[in-house]
């Protein structure tokens, strides 16, 4: 799709977004990439860092309250980077906000997830929300790959609308080991540590 090429071209021009595979290798295996979140370009940066044949099967998770707000953003999110929408503030208890993510994983796609749930002003990630844990428990075969996005907080800090071009790297770590019967808090802390270790 022309829009994807345009977005990737812009990301490369602005921030480079070159991948560093440190602990895992590019692979067709179904994965959940989870990363620290500091700017609006994060999703595209991580997605651009993947090789084209991996990118077509990898869908970034995007906040519905931002990307599904008006037709233009929805068009960019769906056609540009093949996003999966997630409702961050879900009030209806009968609806599982993870439903669209589960469907994408059942369909065999990989996901890009920012488990902090929102952009942080710090270089190190805030505590993770529970979604990653639920997905990990439900899909024990899917590889959980930690990713650290370096420098992106400097490119486009929260509250700014224009990026500053800086060279950013996307570091992929080793897939998280699965520990049977690990409780939620321990798992989420371990996942967060894996991202911090790449910093």
């Amino acid at each position, binding site marked *: 799709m022309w829009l994807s090429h345009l977005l990737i071209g812009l990301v490369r021009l602005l921030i480079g977004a070159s991948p560093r595979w440190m602990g895992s290798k590019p692979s067709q295996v179904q994965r959940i990439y989870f990363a620290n979140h500091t700017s609006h370009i994060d999703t595209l940066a991580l997605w651009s860092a993947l090789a084209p044949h991996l990118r077509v099967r990898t869908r970034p998770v995007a906040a519905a309250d931002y990307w599904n707000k008006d037709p233009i953003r929805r068009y960019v999110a769906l056609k540009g980077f093949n996003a999966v929408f997630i409702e961050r503030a879900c009030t209806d208890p009968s609806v599982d906000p993870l439903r669209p993510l589960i469907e994408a994983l059942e369909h065999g796609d990989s996901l890009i997830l920012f488990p902090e749930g929102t952009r942080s002003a710090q270089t190190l990630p805030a505590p993770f929300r529970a979604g990653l844990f639920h997905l990990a428990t439900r899909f024990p075969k899917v590889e959980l790959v930690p990713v650290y996005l370096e420098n992106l907080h400097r490119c486009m800090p929260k509250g700014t609308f224009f990026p500053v071009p800086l*060279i950013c790297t996307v570091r992929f770590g080793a897939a998280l080991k699965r520990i049977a019967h690990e409780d939620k808090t321990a798992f989420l802390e371990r996942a967060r540590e894996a991202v911090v270790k790449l910093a």
Partner: protein
Amino acid sequence: MTAQDKFFWLMGGITAILILASLVGWLLDHRVKHETQRVVIENLNARVRAWWIMVLIFAIAFFLGKIATLVLFAFVSFFTLREFITLNPTRPGDHRALSLAFFILIPAQYYLIAIEWYALFTIFIPVYGFLLLPSLSVLAEDIENFLERCAKIQWGIMVTIYCVSHVPALLLLAIPGYAGQNALLLFYFLLVVQASDVLQYIFGKLLGKTKIAPVVSPAKTVEGFVGGALGATLVGAGMWWITPFTPLQAAGIAFVTVLMGFLGGLVLSAVKRSVGAKDWGTMIEGHGGMMDRMDSVSFAAPIFFHLTRYFFAL
């Protein structure tokens, strides 16, 4: 000889040199056994490959004309400034100033060359940039290291935008008896600077013993510098026929250019090493970043421009 004939002779010569370099690299690659030598040869071959690409890009831009050349150098400024700011971080309060530098100052500076407004081109960044950028930063009300941050940004834009833009600015010089041939002068300048870099590298690798500035640039040696500087001056003198200079004038100008290029390499090496980096980036395989190739160009360009303008242009 017409300008076009000169251009084709020049390109033919450069292509011949690159073919020779590729052949030598290929032969060396098949002959070395030792592991440490292999690393050197692989780096050499990566450099030669990058040269092919760089020469091709420049040749196409020159062939397409003035606007294409200006756009090309605007991108060179963009990428070198990107590398400079990446290695020399500022604070979030400088965000607006940096956006202005990248998205307004770069296009504006090259636009001024395009419309041949010489007077504003020479003072735009040293005066207006100098006053505007800290004025934008100060609005963020962050005083931590304020002077240091402003100095970093101003220094960065002087080197990457202002100095680099003097290369394509050669196109706006009106030199009697040389009309329509300014692109050749631009090529001549790049040839002398890059020949000096390459010859310093070769002489340094073959004969280098005495380090010239071990702290700032461990690879630079006295033997490499003398051999490279003399060699590039000879190249500059030998290529006088594509310039408005006599052979002797060409040698003099080439010598000054080489000297400035050497100093530029040293100064920018000190900047990158002060922040603990060995290369400015990874854009050009074997060479490092864009700035690793443009450091000598940026220091030599304004001097070459003004020498030519003062002594030869109207």
